[in-house]
């Protein structure tokens, strides 16, 4: 998924979702303030209390967990809503693992992996006092389609009956796909085909369980009752979102849904990034969502190193090139761009070597299926790749442009209008001009750039964009971003922005997904080979893997970073 503060709605074919990643903590607060990797410390009631204040430039749109598709609110949903499964809420790589949440255990597979059987825990209550029942579970899965959740078509279309629901969302019934038995609390989810990533998909916020009578439309700013340790008390997108303790919450599985520490969590909106930094420095806020402005990084990193936490993300910044439009319908032109871009320069624009790492592969380092190779660096080639990126090769790029016969052509670069993206665009413009093109820069609003560059009607030749994993599976990068099925000409939901479709490689990707059901290790190895084969055709130029900075106030303790959902908000201690 793409990380964004605004709603990214990718209907039908789309698969996108949001954020996450990281690795072990690269730098950060002192050990007393830091959670222990892989383990969530036992709950310490003496540290509970106080108000945690989060700040951001703006809100993230609807509060509806089945619709909202932003990292900003997904972080909050971790402490408010629950699905049958959840990603383990711990610090470090183990946060990529799924654990039973509202279900008593991980699903029992039968029928060749096409039927998943769960037993719903008893005694769990919504924040309005009603007990969670299997009918709520069935209604929630139907609601995913009724409200046209952005991932309904991408993640949950494998449930039996989903096709009809996608065609007629308002009357969605999953009687054959989600079979429940109130007497035994059993739930059977039937799939049309085995899916190696189904546990991940059931652990995402779009699959959380809501009351059966939740509105069959976008709830907007009206909170829906929660099951987690917090509930939403009020929400004004122009001002503030307030979370208070859910009076009916009792911890049932600490790995899935731990009790929270602050009594209240207040999210204030409307502060510029500069103001957010000042608020945290002055102790008026505890955490900021937006990136620290470039000209404050050095100051913060020097003066307040104990309040900074940096984590590598399983994400990437990359440049999709339209393989169906000149000049990038020529593979040599695309390879030229790959050779020409100075990934170190782009890292510098992003904030320096502590905040990003140059990358060549489509699958980020540390991600399932990742294989080290770099075909487009000085001294390397497609046939004889290096292990990692070293330096650009402008002369080779110029030669490839000349050989491609595309020299002198006009190239439009579309970027978001925020400072970092514009800087990236300006740099890319300079590089393209250097290797023989006539490049122009087109910065457009961050709110629409992501969908704009997907639509073939806009004839975007090259753009700068980012991808943050939805869940830890190679298909979430390669198949979703470069699979033939992800290319829908004329649609805003054509996430394959390069318009790349290699039928042979597409078959290999589908086969790798099938292989993952029975042999994940073999599948991951195949994904690595596919990555290298795709990058040989250079439909994109990968720039770097970003890192996440969390800047906390001096009073905050017990920071834990989940690779899947980033900082665990509810675990921060402010007392």
């Amino acid at each position: 998924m793409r990380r964004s503060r605004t709603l990214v709605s990718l209907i039908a074919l789309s698969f996108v979702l949001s954020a996450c990643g990281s690795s072990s903590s690269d730098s950060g607060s002192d050990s007393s303030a830091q959670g222990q990797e892989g383990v969530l410390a036992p709950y310490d009631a003496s540290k509970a209390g106080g108000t945690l204040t989060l700040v951001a430039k703006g809100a993230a749109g609807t509060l509806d967990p089945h619709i909202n598709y932003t990292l900003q609110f997904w972080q909050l949903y971790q402490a408010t809503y629950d699905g049958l499964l959840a990603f383990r809420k711990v610090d470090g790589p183990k946060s990529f693992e799924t654990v039973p949440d509202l279900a008593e255990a991980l699903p029992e597979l039968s029928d060749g992996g096409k039927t998943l059987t769960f037993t719903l825990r008893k005694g769990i209550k919504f924040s309005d006092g009603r007990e969670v029942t299997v009918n709520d579970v069935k209604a929630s899965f139907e609601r995913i389609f009724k409200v046209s959740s952005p991932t309904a078509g991408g993640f949950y279309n494998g449930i039996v009956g989903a096709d009809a629901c996608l065609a007629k969302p308002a009357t969605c019934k999953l009687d054959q796909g989600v079979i429940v038995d109130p007497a035994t609390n059993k739930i059977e989810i039937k799939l049309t085909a085995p899916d190696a990533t189904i546990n991940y998909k059931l652990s995402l916020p779009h699959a959380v369980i809501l009351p059966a009578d939740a509105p069959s439309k976008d709830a907007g700013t009206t909170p829906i009752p929660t099951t987690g340790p917090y509930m939403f008390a009020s929400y004004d997108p122009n001002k503030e979102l307030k979370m208070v303790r859910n009076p009916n919450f009792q911890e049932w599985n600490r790995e899935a849904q731990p009790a929270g520490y602050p009594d209240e969590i207040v999210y204030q909106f409307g502060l510029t990034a500069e103001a957010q930094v000042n608020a945290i420095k002055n102790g008026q806020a505890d955490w900021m969502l937006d990136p620290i402005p470039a000209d404050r990084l050095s100051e913060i990193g020097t003066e307040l190193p104990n309040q900074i936490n940096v984590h590598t993300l399983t994400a990437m910044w990359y440049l999709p090139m339209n393989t169906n439009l000149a000049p990038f319908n020529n593979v040599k032109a695309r390879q030229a761009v790959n050779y020409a871009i100075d990934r170190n320069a782009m890292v510098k624009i992003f904030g320096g070597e502590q905040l990003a790492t140059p990358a060549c592969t489509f699958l980020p380092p540390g991600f399932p299926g990742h294989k080290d190779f770099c075909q487009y660096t000085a001294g390397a080639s497609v046939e004889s790749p290096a292990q990692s990126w070293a330096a650009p090769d402008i002369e080779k790029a110029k030669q490839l442009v000349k050989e491609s016969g595309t020299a002198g052509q006009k190239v439009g670069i579309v970027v978001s209008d925020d400072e970092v993206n514009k800087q990236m665009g300006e740099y890319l413009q300079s590089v393209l001009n250097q290797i023989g093109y006539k490049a122009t820069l087109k910065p457009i609003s961050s709110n629409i750039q992501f969908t704009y560059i997907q639509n073939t009607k806009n004839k975007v030749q090259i753009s700068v964009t980012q991808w943050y994993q939805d869940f830890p599976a190679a298909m979430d990068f390669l198949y979703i971003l470069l699979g033939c099925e992800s290319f829908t000409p004329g649609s805003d939901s054509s996430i394959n922005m390069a318009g790349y479709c290699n039928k042979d490689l597409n078959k290999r990707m589908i086969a790798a997904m099938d292989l993952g059901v029975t042999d994940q290790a073999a599948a991951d190895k195949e994904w690595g080979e596919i990555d290298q084969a795709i990058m040989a055709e250079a439909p994109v130029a990968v720039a770097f893997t970003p890192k996440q900075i969390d800047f906390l106030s001096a009073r905050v303790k017990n920071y834990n970073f989940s690779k899947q959902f980033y900082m665990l908000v509810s675990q921060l201690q402010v007392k």
Partner: protein
Amino acid sequence: MTTHEPAFDLSSESPGKIALRTLVRDRRSWIASSMLLVVVALTLSAPLYASLISKTDPFVSTINGTVVLDGVEVQVLQQSTEGLKLGVNPIGPTWKIGPYFLGADNQGRDVAARLLYGGTNTLLIGFSAAALTLIVATLVGVIAGYSGRIIDSVISRILDVIWAFPVYLLSISLSVVLLTSGFKWGPLSLEAGSLYLPIFIIGLVYVPYVARPIRGQVLALREREFVKAAIGGGAKNSTIIFREILPNVIPSVLVFIPLMVSLAMLTESALSFLSIGVQPPDASWGTIIKDGLGLLYTRPIVALTPGLFIVVTAVALNLLGDAVRDALDPKARLRGAF
């Protein structure tokens, strides 16, 4: 009793000569002209500065570039080395004649060289847009005022419509639309991103502000005896306009020149600051301020220097405008005399 030289001359000299002499005697006009000359000379020296002094291409990103200062090779964009080593800072001002006199921007480009090139664009757009405004406004104002009746009504209503939009709102709207698609109307074609686009847009949005007072002046002139005499004498409309009306309108237009250049320059800077004026890699003072905004804490000079140039130029133009107005306005001189 003290004696002093009269502030105006009742001799037989032409009004133009009197105005010119008054302007030359006005200290403000000297100060303003000197300031303007310095600014214009500096901006025109941009190519020389880039090739001989800074020895860098101010339109090419050199993010990973290096420069030799005092015999030591340093990175143009330097990674922080303190604390957690977060952030990258462009090289600061060297204050030595040579590369990076005012430091580098986020793309590693020489700020001083861009400042001079940027000034060329800002002044070019300012003067060109002002010229466009004044030519079109004079034409429209004279035609409307002299023709009267339907033509006057139609032109006046069109001007009212344009006037109804705040000038910046209209400029921004037009820029946003034309920036991506360019402008094509008959044989007139302006490419997206062209420098002519801001000239065209700024020149257009200020037309009503000049055309309306000119129209009013022409309406009044039409009722003057010398115009009526010319009409009665059977003179052609074109003759009346060029011989009787225009010479009396020109002084007003002259007063508008510095003011309009100043307004056009400020509008261009505002549009460029919003990324909808001059497009990268070209520079203008507005784009450099925008570039410097993200460096306010570490390299404030990037934003401050173009701001300073804008202020100096705007003040000079306004001072000159006041001086020209006083020189061309007999009533003002009379007020000064008695």
